[in-house]
């Protein structure tokens, strides 16, 4: 897996490529008028993220990202968009009603964005070892076995609580979708 990188001289080019795919994909999600294209752009963005995981030497996370998000969840998204036949956004309507064209939400939005950027910059400035290469910052759990061991020992509580949360959501969805008895 690393052989390909060494030809290019560094991981930097690949990182730039995958990061660009991820960012452009996410931008395309909100930039599209057609919801189907938004879903597809999101899938593309997930592929970019997955590539970044591979560069971080976490192939398992990369593949799981594709299987769960791109493979299962997005198929359901697409399914719902197609089944409801969600129409294209009407450009004229969008121009008239979108919050972007009103002053108060625009100011609030800009302030929030500035705050987020500031917070990110502050976090980065305080994180040690950002300049080090990927290989030095090797993640603790790179193989499936290690990952499982960590999940079921150190993070046991969080893991089990998450699974119960998902179970509750599933039961709730079934209860909501069930036909009402007359």
């Amino acid at each position: 897996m690393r052989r390909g990188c060494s030809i290019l001289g560094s991981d930097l080019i690949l990182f730039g490529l995958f990061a660009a795919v991820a960012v452009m994909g996410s931008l395309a999600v909100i930039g599209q008028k057609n919801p189907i294209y938004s879903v597809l752009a999101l899938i593309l963005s997930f592929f970019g993220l997955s590539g970044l995981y591979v560069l971080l030497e976490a192939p398992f996370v990369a593949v799981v990202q594709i299987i769960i998000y791109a493979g299962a969840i997005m198929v359901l998204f697409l399914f719902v968009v197609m089944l409801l036949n969600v129409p294209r956004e009407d450009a004229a309507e969008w121009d008239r009603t979108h919050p972007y064209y009103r002053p108060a939400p625009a100011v609030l939005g800009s302030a929030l964005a500035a705050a987020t950027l500031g917070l990110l910059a502050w976090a980065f400035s305080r994180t040690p070892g950002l300049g080090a290469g990927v290989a030095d910052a090797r993640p603790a759990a790179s193989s499936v076995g290690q990952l499982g061991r960590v999940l079921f020992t150190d993070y046991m509580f969080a893991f089990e609580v998450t699974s119960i949360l998902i179970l509750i959501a599933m039961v709730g969805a079934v209860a909501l979708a069930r036909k009402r008895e007359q």
Partner: protein
Amino acid sequence: MSGVLDWLTMPQTIFFLAVTGVVFLALQVSAAVFVYAERKVAAFMQQRYGPYLVGPKGLLQPIADIVKLVFKEELRPKAADGLLFAAAPVISAIAAFAAFAPVPFGASTTFFGLLPEPMPLQVADINVAVLVIFAITSMGVYGIVLAGWASNSKYSLLGGLRSSAQMISYELAYGMSLATICMIAGSLSLREIVDAQAGYYFGVIPKWNVFVLFPTGFIAFLVFGTAGVAETNRAPFDFPEAEQELVAGYHTEYSSMKFALFFLAEYINMVTAAAVTTNLFLGGWHGPLIPEAYGWIWFLIKLFVLCFVYLWLRWTLPRFRYDQLMAFGWKLLLPLATINLLVSAAGVLYFGL
């Protein structure tokens, strides 16, 4: 620049490129052969002759088919979404080809001493190969769904929707039986899983995963095979293209090479499913009589047998009803696969495999 040239002329690189090229071509040829085999086997089962006019015994029929498809007029419905209509068959074909990349088909070989170190007969040796195949296969559904949507035809849309529902339902049982085998083998690498299947129990029964922890291995094999047929949209699970109800399903509006790409993808998916089943359950390239260096012969034999079973199923079993298909997947296969996973987990703990 010289670094790239050195890398390109290394024996390993040449071997790697050769293997990639051979796999790429072999998959295409296998699709053509599969079409011919399908028509001949169907004819045999229905007591007909099948294709016999083009070439001896109709052997050149695939070539005639391809020529015909190339020269067909390319049609596109007026209201279709142009970009996605063109992209859908390409997505299907790319996913089909890419899914074969992590599949090993032979033991490591020095290729008659031409290579300084043994190289595996495989395009990409990935340590999470099983999951990669699973991920790429699940990408194939987008081709079908988008084809159904982009055609802007009710039959296509229904075919696409059915396909996505079907694939999601059967992926669960598929994944559960995969997990069973990965757990028993203790690895997610297909090469390691195959290597764990070398040798014999009591000197007679091969140590294949079909026979491991009997009957859990066998149940996993059945579930995996059934879900595999459903994943590749083959009869008796060929709902996305149920002719009587949906004209031709998701590819109703397609013609010429775009249509051909869908069929190429379908047949390559079958070959990949058979190859993965061979590696996971039938011992891959391990078998009696043939030395390990020529193990790919065993691999091909097993592959052919499984492909024949695919054809056999299609021309023997009638299609399920749609609600039966869903009930079968969710109420029978998934619980069976889950219980099987738990039982084999207990078995692995007890016998300390």
